């Protein structure tokens, strides 16, 4: 899954740094707290790392380790943990937090201290976690986060009084705005005075625990803030029985239309750059096999994929706004009934929605689903959701075969509509598959659906910018490794076997022979041998097919994505083009996804079944499309 980390599933830094053999043992501090209390935001502030944060409960599903260097040079390890409501774990992500805190996690030492992050606007409930955490007996700082919100909505709390009630230091901060973080650093440096420890009631009885919280809150003069006015106002639209679904639909249409229209000038710009630099290289370098490799293989292959970067970033911008604003939780509520009809629950909707970006983080996000069978069903259908790697393939073929015509005035063009149709096709495949699974092998009782609605917040430019930056890095890294590698191998195979010092015509090269060997198998789908070679190479990752076709046609003397469209029109019938789109909608062509499914389900059984099922569906779907439309 190396090619896909950073899609949101950040990479844990678990190894000790080279200087770790130093004498003093480096201390480990854990960040603990209820879901959506801002642990990862504080973690990112303290470590300078970029863990994914968003505005809904259950974003962090794994422990993440980062380093922090204090002013006096002391180094600490910080562990960011998934959110928990209590020390009784119920889902996979909660178990991780539980095991780390009890020192049961193999690769992480038991923490030496704790930052307990609570949402200060919600102390009545959040403080219930304080008793069990403080009773672990580790040095703990109680961090009351979102102090800016508390203040703005007219709430207040006496941190010093709360500290003496809890027997632990308390500080008010806003991790998002960076206010009060210095107090956290002072605690980590060990220069914060700890109040007299007090006897805390460790109560299994939740009502009694809540009474205890009410008592200390009263002594700490806690005034709960007024309800968030704007959240109420926005919800009266977004959760309106009629307006809600209308707004949802309008948002979806606007996203698709702008992916096609707004991204076009940027994509044209990148294409120009690629073409111009390729032409310049062709002139500047002396004629040699190296020039041919560079211009036809690398520029033709990698260049034709890079063109799609602006479009993918635009999609991620939209997904980022939906996630950071808090709208996603509402969308999950609206979608719950549809999900229930296919046997899943609304909670499955959040991983499925993030699968529109990339299936890998989506599959990790299923850890928040308590019911194991629901979780596996969600993992199995996630790759049907149209991930951003399909976008280049869809755009290329749609632009080549579908003329642009307005459908709903200027609101929706024919190309955007075709794209929307492909997204729906993937969604339908997911829904039907879920239904099949839930009524057979993965049958279970209807799981309870409980989802907390976070208040709406403005997405910060910084958070959105970092998402785009990370995504661009992943995309370009993939272009520079997987796609470059495939392009080079392809170029070499296309120039072998050398006869009389000359490369053979491409049909008689190794690539041509491989392609023509599988051609009988894919001819019923309307694909020729070149598309076949593209299909084989796209087993590594879907967008590789664009690079492969770019390289093959480049060797025939047509570099660049615009002429790639012409070459495709020459090689594919319209029926074959539709078949190719259907094939990509269904097939599981992604090594990273296969690897993560194997890891999350603990064996090869599910990924093998999934690969075979999706492959069979892709073949059958493409076959039917080609035969019907021919």
């Amino acid at each position: 899954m190396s090619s896909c980390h950073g899609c949101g599933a950040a990479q844990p830094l678990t190894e000790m740094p080279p200087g770790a053999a130093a004498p003093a043992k480096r201390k480990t501090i854990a960040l603990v707290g209820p879901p959506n209390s801002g642990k990862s935001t504080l973690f990112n502030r303290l470590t300078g790392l970029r863990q994914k944060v968003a505005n809904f409960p259950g974003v962090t599903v794994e422990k993440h380790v980062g380093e922090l260097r204090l002013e006096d040079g002391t180094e600490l390890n910080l562990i960011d943990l998934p959110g928990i409501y209590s020390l009784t774990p119920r889902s996979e992500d909660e178990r991780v937090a539980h095991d780390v805190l009890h020192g049961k996690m193999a690769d992480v030492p038991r923490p030496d201290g704790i930052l307990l992050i609570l949402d200060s606007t919600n102390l009545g409930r959040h403080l219930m976690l304080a008793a069990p955490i403080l009773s672990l007996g580790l040095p703990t700082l109680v961090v009351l986060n979102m102090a800016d919100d508390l203040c703005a909505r007219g709430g207040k709390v006496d941190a010093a009084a709360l500290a003496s009630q809890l027997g632990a230091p308390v500080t008010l901060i806003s991790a998002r705005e960076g206010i009060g973080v210095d107090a956290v650093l002072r605690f980590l440096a060990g220069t914060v005075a700890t109040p007299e420890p007090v006897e805390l009631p460790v109560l299994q009885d939740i009502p009694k625990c809540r009474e205890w919280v009410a008592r200390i809150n009263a002594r700490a003069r806690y005034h709960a803030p007024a309800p968030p006015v704007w959240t109420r106002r926005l919800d009266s639209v977004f959760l309106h029985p009629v307006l809600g679904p209308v707004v949802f639909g309008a948002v979806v249409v606007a996203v698709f239309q702008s992916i096609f229209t707004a991204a076009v000038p940027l994509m044209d710009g990148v294409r120009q750059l690629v073409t111009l630099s390729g032409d310049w290289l062709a002139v500047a370098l002396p004629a040699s096999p190296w020039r041919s490799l560079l211009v036809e293989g690398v520029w033709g292959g990698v260049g034709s994929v890079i063109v799609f970067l602006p479009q993918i970033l635009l999609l991620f911008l939209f997904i980022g706004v939906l996630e950071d604003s808090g709208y996603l939780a509402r969308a999950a509520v609206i979608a719950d009934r549809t999900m229930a009809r296919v046997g899943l629950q609304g909670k499955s909707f959040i991983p499925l929605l993030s699968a529109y970006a990339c299936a890998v983080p989506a599959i990790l996000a299923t850890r928040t689903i308590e019911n194991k069978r629901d979780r596996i069903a969600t993992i199995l259908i996630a790759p049907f959701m149209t991930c951003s790697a399909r976008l280049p393939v869809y755009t290329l073929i749609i632009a080549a075969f579908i003329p642009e015509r307005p459908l709903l005035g200027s609101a929706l063009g024919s190309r955007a509509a075709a794209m929307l149709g492909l997204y729906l096709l993937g969604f339908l495949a997911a829904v039907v598959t879920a239904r099949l699974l839930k009524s057979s092998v993965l049958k279970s009782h209807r799981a309870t659906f409980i989802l907390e609605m976070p208040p709406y917040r403005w997405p910060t430019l910084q958070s959105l910018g970092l998402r785009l930056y990370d995504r661009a890095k992943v995309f370009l890294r993939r272009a520079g490794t997987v796609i470059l590698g495939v392009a080079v191998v392809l170029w070499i195979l296309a120039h072998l076997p050398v006869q009389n010092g000359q490369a053979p015509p491409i049909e008689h090269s190794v690539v041509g022979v491989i392609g023509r060997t599988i051609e009988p198998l894919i001819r019923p789908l309307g694909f020729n041998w070149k598309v076949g070679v593209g299909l084989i190479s796209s087993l590594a990752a879907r967008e590789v097919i664009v690079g492969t076709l770019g390289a093959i046609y480049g060797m025939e003397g047509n570099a660049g994505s615009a002429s790639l469209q012409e070459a495709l029109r020459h090689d594919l019938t319209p029926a074959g083009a539709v078949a190719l789109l259907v094939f990509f909608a269904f097939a599981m062509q992604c090594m990273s996804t296969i690897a993560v499914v194997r890891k999350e389900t603990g064996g090869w059984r599910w990924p093998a079944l999934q690969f075979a099922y999706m492959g069979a569906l892709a073949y059958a779907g493409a076959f039917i499309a080609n035969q019907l439309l021919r």
Partner: protein
Amino acid sequence: MRRRLRAHGRPAGPATLVELEEGQGGILDRLDLPEDEARRLMELGFLPGHRVTAALAAPGGDPRVFRVDGAEIALRRETAARLVLRRNGE
């Protein structure tokens, strides 16, 4: 819809969260749920003696968002029907 009408017919008011109309509140009496699910809901604020108010719902009225203890939590109808309200006691 039928449930709501029936609720109107009763003098004692709504019996469970399902029968609360939008904006209407009640005091929670008990959770008729398996231990595990009841604990999760109690951690989220659905505690006996606490006031629960029905807020907006998805189209069709299911799931519905409930306000309790400073938070907003969405529950399906089948779960809400197991959260019993105190009678005669507003």
